[in-house]
């Protein structure tokens, strides 16, 4: 098997070295021959074998950052929809897969996983927002990205930090939820496109296992 290129899109959204190191470590530990590439070059993204869209910050600001790189959205679209490459959005990168975000202003997303990104409103008013910290996952269906990862109340934990969450129009797009005064979408997937609300690069064991699963994913 030849070396695969994994493009992590760098569009000024911060903290990508940590993500790159996590992908490198997951590749090494899972015996995956992958070249992890932090890039702002649309050509690299369009030709990559796998694409990761991270995102930290406010929705509109991330969208602006993505738009500010000429040709990047076209390159992402080519990789994900033209070539059918495995595509992973992380945190706001996952939220950008939605139709639109409602944080501060209504901002269009990519519309790849139709739905809105709206504020978390726990039923119990004593629950704090942001949903911040370590929570367990409850799978809605089987998925390769969760293979071998202990889930449920006694399972491993994922690190969340967000005030807004994606609610897909089609519930079948939800792979796993966290519970925080009600369901919170944690992992979505449609075909070769997936996204995590939590931060796998900050989620220690669960995170490295999920990244390894992504690197081996053949959707």
């Amino acid at each position, binding site marked *: 098997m030849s070396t695969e290129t994994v493009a992590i899109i760098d569009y000024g959204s911060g903290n990508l*070295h940590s993500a790159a190191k996590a992908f490198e470590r997951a590749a090494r530990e899972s015996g995956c021959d992958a070249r992890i590439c932090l890039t702002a070059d649309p050509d690299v993204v369009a030709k990559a074998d796998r694409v990761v869209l991270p995102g930290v910050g406010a929705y509109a600001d991330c969208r602006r950052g993505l738009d500010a790189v000429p040709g990047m959205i076209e390159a992402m679209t080519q990789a994900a929809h033209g070539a059918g490459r495995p595509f992973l959005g992380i945190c706001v990168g996952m939220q950008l897969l939605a139709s639109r975000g409602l944080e501060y202003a209504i901002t269009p997303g990519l519309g790849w996983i139709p739905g809105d990104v709206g504020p978390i409103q726990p039923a119990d008013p004593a629950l704090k927002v942001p949903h911040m910290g370590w929570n367990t996952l409850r799978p809605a269906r089987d998925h390769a990205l969760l293979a071998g990862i202990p889930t449920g109340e006694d399972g491993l934990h994922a690190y969340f930090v967000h005030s807004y969450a994606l609610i897909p129009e089609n519930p079948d797009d939800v792979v796993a939820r966290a519970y925080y005064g009600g369901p919170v979408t944690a992992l979505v997937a449609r075909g070769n496109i997936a996204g995590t609300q939590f931060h796998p690069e900050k989620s220690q064991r669960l995170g490295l296992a999920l990244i390894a699963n992504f690197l081996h994913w053949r959707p």
Partner: protein
Amino acid sequence: MLKTRIIPCLDVKDGRVVKGVRFEGLRDAGDPVEAAKVYDAAGADELCFLDITASREARGTLLDIVSRTAEACFMPLTVGGGVRTVEDVRALLLAGADKVAINTAAVKDPDLVARAAEKFGAQCIVVAIDAKRVSPPGTPAAWEIFTHGGRDPTGIDAVAFARLVAEKGAGELLVTSMDKDGTRSGYDLALTRAISDAVTVPVIASGGVGGLDDLVAGVAQGGASAVLAASIFHFGQATIAEAKAHMAAAGLAMRLDSPASSARTPL
């Protein structure tokens, strides 16, 4: 279910951990990155660096530490100390901090919190509130914000300030009792509770931990979402695992995942 977080805090000055960290086998007790790796392997839920370097020129040293920590540790990192502008916040986030704590600058200009939250999202903006009790015994409790390590009074009511910065967009409040800090006599639970009840964002209890029961009380009585401690962890009085086990035994929901992804430890 969301778990209560335990956050070891390292005070960093000129690139070195203040007073050092006493772990068996640690090559360099003063290296913040080495200490961070140990806490990552030990299962800490987050890590906090507070930079107490006086000079502005040494900022690059802090950014380097943050960057090396983020590359070595797959756990969330909050960094505070000397953050004055939106650009300071951006530099720390780009270096690899997950959250940035603003202290004095938020007291001087609460709108800085709003500008930073709008730019980077509320989830990564922490406001660090240092407060002292100013009410005489026998009167209703009141706390005042102090800056510069507890030296300078501001005349600002701590609970009202907490409400204000939460409205401005702070995603979390790090509440330190300057009366309790360093005393090892437990958190100021009334302060923690008063602020936790006043805001909808998570509160981190800080200042005064002397034993594991203090961590339990910070959550059970103080209403904190996370507990921060320094010396009990740095000087080996308790491990993160012991603290978690103690808190779980007291009925708190804790993350008890075995921490490292492999058998390899950073030592």
